[in-house]
């Protein structure tokens, strides 16, 4: 069996407020155990304060666990070496605003030991991937929120990691930018990259993730393959095109005769995101 990309074993994290002694400790994560298999896109969900970000920080070695252990591809998260394989995009990231986009990616590349022509080629490739070639020489201080997320994604990918940890990658980004980021994650998924995604945008999580875990008050309350968790096993959905009223009446009669119950019927609606993107891209075309 292959080594999991992330393995969390009985993780508990307590924060002690500076002015209060131990009995005032706040438990952010409580006895959490979780595995993310290599090549999966895992969605970690939960309301604010449920412990998602703390879990991510422990996995990345930014926070020390009170008890329990976390591993990245079998290496303890507390070892700096484990981060060779990880790219991380925090929520609402800010980078050194006096650097240009290109210099930012260069800087993170150097931290990963990439130098010279390889670094220049990699930077160019990543800026093209995230659609920032035209803004490569602009200072990051002048970037929009969507551009910051994209440069954040570029720096996360600079050492070609096997695991990407994304904390709210589309927070504050407009629908078009958000769609682009989702498409990028789908590309990573197609290439076999493991992704741990934290997001409040459930429709995106549903579109992208293979497996999800739902956290509440520091613990995992549900976990499993997305399809299994949200599929209603005793119902079947059919979408008909150009069905005549007679055919529909006949179907209804057959359903009743067969002992089944027609739970719902109606006209399907297209996704609002898709509709918005179609309208805005049409408007752009007419402007040109």
């Amino acid at each position, binding site marked *: 069996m292959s080594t999991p990309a992330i393995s969390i074993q009985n993780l508990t994290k307590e924060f002690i407020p500076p002015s209060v002694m131990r009995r005032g400790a706040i438990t952010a994560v409580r006895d959490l155990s979780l595995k993310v298999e290599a090549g999966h896109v895992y969605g970690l969900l939960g309301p604010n304060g449920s412990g998602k970000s703390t879990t991510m920080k422990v996995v990345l070695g930014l926070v020390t666990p009170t008890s329990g252990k976390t591993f990245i591809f079998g290496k303890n998260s507390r070892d700096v070496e484990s981060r060779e394989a990880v790219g*991380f995009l925090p929520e609402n990231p800010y980078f050194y605003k006096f650097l240009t986009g290109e210099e930012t990616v260069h800087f993170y590349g*150097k931290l990963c030991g990439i130098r010279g022509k*390889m670094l220049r080629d990699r930077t160019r490739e990543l800026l093209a991937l995230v659609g920032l070639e035209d803004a490569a020489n602009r200072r990051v201080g002048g970037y929009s929120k969507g551009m910051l997320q994209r440069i954040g994604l570029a720096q996360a990918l600079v050492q*070609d990691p096997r695991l990407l940890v994304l904390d709210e990658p589309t927070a504050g980004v407009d629908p078009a930018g958000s769609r682009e980021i989702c498409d990028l994650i789908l590309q*990573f998924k197609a290439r076999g990259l493991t992704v741990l995604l934290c997001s409040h945008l459930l429709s995106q999580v549903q579109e992208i993730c293979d497996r999800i875990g739902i956290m509440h008050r520091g613990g995992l309350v549900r976990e499993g393959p997305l399809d299994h968790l949200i599929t209603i096993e005793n119902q079947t959905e059919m979408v008909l095109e150009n069905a005549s009223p007679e055919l529909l009446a006949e179907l209804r009669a057959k359903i009743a005769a067969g002992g089944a119950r027609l739970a719902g019927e109606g006209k399907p609606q297209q996704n609002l995101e898709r509709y918005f993107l179609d309208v805005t891209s049409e408007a752009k075309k007419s402007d040109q």
Partner: protein
Amino acid sequence: MTANSPSAAAHASAHKLFSLGRAAAIAGNTLRDLVRQKVFYFMLVFALVLIGMSLVLAALSFQGQLQMVMNMSLGAMSVFTMLLAVLASAMMLPKDIEDRTLYTILAKPVSRFEYLLGKLAGVALMLLIATLLMTVFFCIVLWFWQGREIASIRGSVQSELVDAEVAKVMAGTFTPTLFGGIGVIFLRAVVCSALTLMVSSFATSWLFTVIISLMLILIGHIVPIARSAWMDPIQAGVDVPWYLSLFLRLITVFAPDMQLFNIVDDIAVGTHVASGIFGQVTALGCGYITIYVLVAYLFFAWREL
């Protein structure tokens, strides 16, 4: 593309516990950030102070103006480099934490020690450039005043003594001791930077860091007195109660002995300082820097981000 890129295999060599390359990347970035924050505009103020001081001295006319220029310039250089060191170092860590830039750096294979060392090296590089720029400006001003002094000698001293007096002025102006003194000023600034970095490793705001660091630097000027009162109160002629003794110990342990660097004051008044003294000051300065970086690391290694 990403997964097929040759870069992954190329850099997937064994991880080194400490990499000079990673620390250098952080140092270079810190320097670039400081330069683009127009920190060297500070130098303009230094230049204006020296020009203003020269104009005031030119308006007055008395003996020993050259010595005065040297004294005041080295004093200004000391104050400017120390302020620059504290202000530049105090901002680094709290700002990186607040902007979450630190998360992205430490989520790469970078140890907290490499991060701290890189940050300190970046500030030290900036201080080196600032000290060199100030030295150039100082030398120009000193050269101008040396010329004035020589002209004044030629105008007032008996002709048979002129050459000897001029040679004396020439030999006493741009001396190795003077440049050694400038080196000590730079070293003191790096000590202040390391001290500030140590304070910022446990502080939660840059303002707190600036205040505490400046206080420690000020207190550092009384370290020799505190040390003698603690270690030999009878000879120091004081009766030290236990709480004062504890306070003096704390000062002696945590504050840098700033008197150590006061050989610059002796140099400014033309005293010759032996090279052995420079060696001792350099060794002690480097010792302070090492201790502060290590203590900063101990705090920072356990800090929750």
